[in-house]
């Protein structure tokens, strides 16, 4: 095995490890909150789904135009949002109905 082949194999393995560990790139576009994969500031564009859910979210402060901080992105079940000084935990049924974009 030449040094070049070894180097290529190692680089390939490193890429595979990186792809397993690192989170995918999130483009700046409107997408459900459940698809947001990185912490940081986001802006709520729309709350869809059941009308009760929209109203409930509004009473909690999650309504269109509001900027919030995504503290813990969803990893299968829950995500943590910080808004107006409070920390909210939302489950996937809720987050897939909240459309957000990068702030």
């Amino acid at each position: 095995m030449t040094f070049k082949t070894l180097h290529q194999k190692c680089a390939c393995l490193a890429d595979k490890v990186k792809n397993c560990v690192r989170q995918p790139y999130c483009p700046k576009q409107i997408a459900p909150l459940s698809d947001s994969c990185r912490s940081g500031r986001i802006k709520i564009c729309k709350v869809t789904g059941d009308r009760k859910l929209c109203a409930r979210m509004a009473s909690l402060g999650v309504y269109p135009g509001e900027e919030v901080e995504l503290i813990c992105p969803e990893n299968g079940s829950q995500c943590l949002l910080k808004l107006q000084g409070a920390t909210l935990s939302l489950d996937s049924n809720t987050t897939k109905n909240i459309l957000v974009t990068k702030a």
Partner: protein
Amino acid sequence: MNQNIRMALVGNPNAGKTTLFNTLTGARQHVGNYPGITVDYKEGDFTHKNQGNIQEDNQRITLTDLPGTYSLTAYSVEEVVTREYLVNAKPQVVINIVDASNLERNLYLSTQFLELGCPLIIALNMVDVAKDRGIEIKVEKLAELLGVPVAPIIARSGQGASALIDQAIMLAEKPWQPRDISYGEDLDAAIMELITIISENNFLTHTYPARFTAIKYLEHDDQILQKGQEDDSATAARLEEKVTQVSDHLLKTMDAYPEAIIADHRYGFIKSILRQGVQTHTFDTDRLYTSDKIDKVLTNRLLGPAIMLLVLFGLYQFTFTASELPVAWLESLFGLIGDQAKSLLPDGPVKSMIVSGVINGMGGVLGFVPLIMFMFLGIAVLEDSGYLARVAFMMDRIFRIFGLHGSSVMPFIVSGGIAGGCAVPGVMATRTLRSPKERMATLLTVPFMNCGAKVPVIALLIGAFFSDHKAIYMFLFTMLSWMVALLAAKLLRTTVLRGPATPFVMELPPYRFPTLRGLAIHTWERTWQYIKKAGTVILGISILLWAMMTYPGLPAAKMAGFEQQRRAAISPFASEIVSESQSEKEEVSESARTLRRQLAAINDQESEQALRSSIAGRIGIALEPVSRLAGFDWRTNIALVGGLAAKEVIISTLGTAYSMGKVEADASDSLGQRLTRDPNWNKVVAVSALIFIMFYAPCFVTVVCIAREAGHWGWALFSISFNTTFAFLLAAAVYQIGRLLG
């Protein structure tokens, strides 16, 4: 003294209502740093020295602490309880606690109180926290723009509470006066039309202001819609028709439901007030506070669960290490009391009842008090610091697979998830669950955990039959209890408790340092509940079990027969040998030892016969044809029936049933050896018995708690029958398969 004034405390969850309630009334209500602690309202009275007047005057006040809510629309039980209390009880003053560090969201609820028209005063709580976060609030300006008095307070220290009550008293005579908030041209026009219909027909006007009803119709409030149907179905139909037209129009033109537009305008109203110089930020509003930074680590997808396991293991270690000595002291104390009673009381049934029934029975339960107390202290620390809410957040993912909720995790742990808990506080801990079906599934499966009373039995049987791999078997049986509990929950949630999963939407409280006073109150309240409930019930059960295992006793003829045997055994020995064998000396001659052995064998036979003819013995024998399927003989049955009262009883009853006399839980070797020698016991029977003991009907105290928490004895009976059937089928399957495999 003036006439009593009725005041109500309202606000968002975790805004500090119960803390202020305790400060004002001197009550000891439980305040946890966990949302949903208050789900019902509580009342307290106090006398306030009015310092606002020149002439000092004492004012009697009745204060009601209402559940925390985010709105007055009926989305949850708390919202319904709060709204119905306000409109039915019509308190003279409503104190709205608002978190100053989270003003905008908290004022959302305040706008709805303004619309309801109740005499409102805003208690601006946690002004110190807001100041630390660089938030400055101009109180006078806020009061002026909202049109209601505002009093800054710090509920934890009681600062400003007296001034708040001074101002609140002045509002007591004020009539209810609803305020109008504009919701835009479209909705305002629709509201006016709805108000006209409502006023013309006096529709629900005896309970709610006309505008409030109109808004709730637009918000599609289920409870008000139902009330409307019941009150006047014709008018309700007209209103619903009008609302449908408006909703359709808004959906077409604005792609939004009326409630979304209403919420948007409410926030607009709040923002317009706050931006008039009411709230200024010294720091950058985007900055993350310590609490958020801690959350980034503690709820991290990899680090979070690892830290959680460490914390829970730490809690387990702390509970058992700290309680080791006090538990030993209490055991010695009860031993001493038992010895004293033995020496002081004359022989007879009363002595037997007091020593075996009362002291041993009560001692078995009260001996656990230090352990329970330290466990509650540990849980109080986790709860008050805010970490418990994060544990629920992380566990929700796993529990959801089995139809449970993230909040189910604590009841499981408390019940013995980390072996050694107790199902009684575990069952009580299910109160934090909102969904009745998820709560019921949790309530019925937490008794599957290995509680502190089951652990000695498991240790005894593992020690006797699997002594080479004790630790592995102990670990396996703990894992088995988790697996069975979660699978049983899944079974319940897909059959009798079928229903949708509740969204796990929860406001996580910020991390706070628990106060010593708070920890002491929480720990003592819960421990006292345990002493009171478990103590009284166990006392009754101990006496009952003692009676069942003692009466009706041996027939006189049989007793005479045993007496004759004893005399026959003694007759070949000289009187010195007989008195030597009856002495308390350990070192005796060979002949005395032989006599002792012979007499002990006769006594054992007599005890066994007495037990066979007792009520408990007869029950054991009657159950034998069925229990044989799982490998249990009549003596094991007595112990298992005794375990229905309290699992602690199993070991001592097994000891008695196998004619061992008094057997201490710690001295398990002798009973273990006896069991290994018994022809009815082998490894397969041991596994079958272990499985049955782990999963059969919960103890009596737990059953009472299940009935109380479920609000129905039917669920308690279901728990007994479901668990026992399930455990028996499993145990019988293990025994039969084990026997076939040899």
